Every structure is written in structure tokens, then in C-alpha cells.
């Protein structure tokens, strides 16, 4: 059985600011990032769907340390966003001063863009991630 939406296809779409996931024909749930099965009902009767890229921040952190090779990125803000379609996704919050981010941003609506992690010797290639900015 083939994987419907692979990381390669997800990654290529995200680089064009398109957030791709799966919509389950059985239970209606969206799964994003993609998996082999529906994240809700574990069945495989789903199709590829583009998500809106809109959602609200559920939690965040501003990091002052980073993994080897990413030291020049600090400080940066990681957010967990609940997408309008339901799934939670991890990304960054951009177009803000990371040092000024406080609990006040929880619940704020955001819109997706992307940034690309340029790969290191362990990562098997580059990887885009959601880069959210505050709406308003």
C-alpha cells in the first residue's frame, strides 16, 4: 500500500506556502502533517487536501539555545498552532521580536508562510517548516 502524501510532496508544497494534508472520507478529520493513516480513525480512506494555513496559537516558546549549526538563529520563537481545520502543527512565529513574545499571543490568529532549514549532515536534505505571522 502506498503512502498517499509523502514528506517529499508535502515539503515541496510548503516551500510554495501551500499546506497539504489528508482529509478522511470516513470520519471527516484532517491529518496534517500527513501520516499513513487518518490520525483520528486510523483508516486509509482519505484524499490529499490543501489546508487554509490559518489557525490560532495554542502555545509558544522563545529559545535562546539551538542545536549545532543553528546557533545563528537564536533567539527564535516556536509556536504550536491549532489549524482552522483542526490539526495542531509546529512552526515558527516570524515578523515579530522573539524577545517580546509573551503569553498574550496565545489564542491570536495566524497565517502560514514558510522558511527552509537548509540541511546538515544528518538531515537527508532541506526541509521547509511553517513560518506563521500574526493576522491583523
Amino acid at each position, binding site marked *: 500500500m502506498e503512502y498517499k502524501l509523502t*514528506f517529499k510532496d508535502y*515539503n515541496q508544497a510548503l516551500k510554495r506556502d501551500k499546506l497539504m494534508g489528508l482529509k478522511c472520507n470516513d470520519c471527516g478529520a484532517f491529518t496534517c*502533517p500527513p*501520516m499513513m493513516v487518518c*490520525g483520528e480513525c486510523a483508516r486509509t480512506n482519505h484524499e490529499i487536501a490543501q489546508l487554509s494555513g490559518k489557525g490560532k496559537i*495554542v*502555545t*509558544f*516558546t*522563545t*529559545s*535562546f*539555545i*539551538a*542545536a*549545532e*549549526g*543553528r*546557533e545563528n*538563529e537564536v533567539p*527564535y520563537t*516556536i509556536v*504550536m498552532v*491549532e489549524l482552522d481545520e483542526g*490539526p*495542531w*502543527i*509546529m*512552526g*515558527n512565529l516570524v515578523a515579530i521580536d522573539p524577545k517580546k*513574545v509573551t*503569553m498574550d499571543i*496565545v489564542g491570536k490568529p495566524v497565517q502560514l508562510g514558510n522558511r*527552509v*532549514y537548509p540541511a*546538515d549532515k*544528518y*538531515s537527508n536534505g532541506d*526541509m*521547509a*517548516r*511553517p513560518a506563521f505571522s500574526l493576522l491583523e
Partner: protein
Amino acid sequence: MRRVAVIGTGHSKFCFNSEKTQVEMLAEVALDAINEANITPKDVQAVNVGNVLGDFEEGQGMVQSFLANDIGCFNVAASRFEGACASGSMAVRDAVMWVASGYYDIMLVGGVEKATAMGTPLATRTFAMFGDSRYEFPAGFTFPAVFALLAHLYSNKYGIPMAALKEQMAAVSVQSHEYAMKNPNAQIHKAISKEDVLKSFMVSTPIQLQDACPFSDGAAAIVIASEEAAKKLVKKPVYFAGIGQASSGKLSSQQKYLPRIRARELASQQSYSMAGLTPEDMDLCELHDCFSIAAMIAAEGLGFFDYGTSGLAWEKGETRIGGKIPINLSGGLKAKGHPIGATGVSQVYEVTRQLRGDMAEQGRQVDGAKNGIIDTLGGDGVLVSMILSTM
């Protein structure tokens, strides 16, 4: 299934920059455990080892076979377990099942790590490999960041203002350092105050340096045996009354259940159910406090306190000797240290010695302790729970 007991224990001093190799560190504690069990290496039928990053740390993969050979357990089956920070606990649980099944009578289980050899930047990179490499590492995922995300979620979900939560988190670290002072194997022997925690370097908001465990080198080992063999070999076998293990996927996939960790709750329910015991029956607990907020989440997930209230319990001393449930009398990962492959085995060592009454001389014995639980969390996705009992 047969009952299985711990009959021997060994534990190195946890430290920064060990001068020994991983095989040397583990061989020393393995022989201590074998000697305590009144057996010889030839009596060991199989070896399980928790080791996570030996490949990165000293270019050594497959440490389990070299360990077995080095200690004279020549040619026995030797297996390595990798579940990030829960690797040692996985190795123990798996061995318990092999002995319980009747396949083996006596096994050695060890855990070892030499994380400080990597230096902090590479250690941070490799530890981040235990999150989702495709979908979450690109956003700058690190383990401090994971528990920082959970801390803000915890504050929001349970309506605890961040300033109050920070004080509660600090109380967790202060207690761990205090008990570590009494543990000769602890990596850090330094009392700290709430103020020390709150003025320490900000790692990933709201987690500061003194909310976090260190990178560590160290090893621990135990010998386990069937009840029949155990009773012939030692005076005070300590039994595995219950065991449990569960997994979970990438952090975002856990969604609305967070900041609770469902896999922990399932794993501990398995071990309580198997043991026929409840949280109220536990006399002490060694739980996975890689960060202060992680300790609070764990204590609630194991059933000791209502959700959102464990920080108050730490502040009131309910987690100390004499309190409702003494937690991390070893100093915990925070101050005892956290050599990730060894941690689960170290937790079993600690609870075994408490149940044998061996900790009185160190001034941290829970008098008359009969049942103790250990909890280990590995990465996003491996949770192990084990209940040890004198009966």
C-alpha cells in the same frame, strides 16, 4: 508468568567528562551487580543494555556485545535498547518479560551514556533527533523547547499565572538539589535556592537553566532472576510487581491531550493493574524530571495529584520524606544527573535500595517502604512505568 526479582545492583557516580569509556563505566557497575547477586558472570544467560548515542559519543555502536565480553559473559545473547531517555527502562522491562516467560532465569541489565563527550551543541542536536526529524526539527525543536511549550500550555490550561508557575517549578529543582546532596552518586552536590533558579540563564521561555537536568556521563546495572532463583541467592529480593510501556507520535499529533502525556497514563495504568495496586499504595516514586515542569506533569499523570496542582504539592513538601508521596529522593534527573541510556536502570537501582532499606546511612530512607514506582519518558514517544515491591 513467573515472578521476577532484582537481586543485584550497581551504580557509578554520575558526572561531567568521565575519563572512562562506556564499556569501562558499564563493566564496573555490572560486576558490582553480579557480585551483590552472589553469582558469577557465567551465570548470566543474556544481557540487555540501554544506550542511546554511543555512536556519536565515542564512535561506539553495539556497546552491549563488547560489554558482555569485557565482563566475562562470553557469547551470551546481548541486545541494545534505544528509546531515547527511556532506553534503560525499556531494557529492564524487556528482560523482566524474558525471565517471567521462563526463557531465561538470570539476566544482567545495564545502561550507559557519555553525553558530555559530545559537547553541548552536538548533544543538543542529537537529543533533538528524538523528536520528529521531518516535521518538527525544522522549526528549531529541542527538548527544552518541548517542555517550554508544555509549560505555557500548562499555565493556560489550568489557569496558573506564569509567575506563580515559575515559583512552583523552582520548588521542584530546589528539592531535587537538596536530596542529591545526600546521594554520593549524584552529579551535582550543590544546594540552590528559589532565587538561584529564577535568576539562571533563560534557555527557552519559561524554562531556565536551573529548571533543566544536565548532560551526564554514567552507568547503572542490575541483575534480575526468577523468584525461585532469587530466593536461593539473596536475602532480600525486590520484585517487579507491575510493568507497562506505551508510545506516542510527534508532539503536535498529541494535540488536545497535552500537556498531559497519554502514553504515560496508559503505561502506568498497565503497571498499577498488573500489580493490583493504586497510587495510594506507593511509598515512593522516581519519576522523569528532565525539566521541573516535566516532573509536575509526571506526578499528575501517575495519579498522585489532581491536574494542575502538583506544583503546590512540591511547595507544601508533600513530595518529601514524610509527605504524601516522596519523589526523587535520589536528586532526580535534575541533580543526580541524566546519562540517558542509564537513567531507567538508575531509577530501578534507587527504588530497589529504598525497598531493601539500604538508604538509611545516606539519610534519605523512606522508613518501611514496601512499594515504589518508576516512570521514564523517552523523547516524544516512549513511556515506561514499573512498580517494585518487597512482597
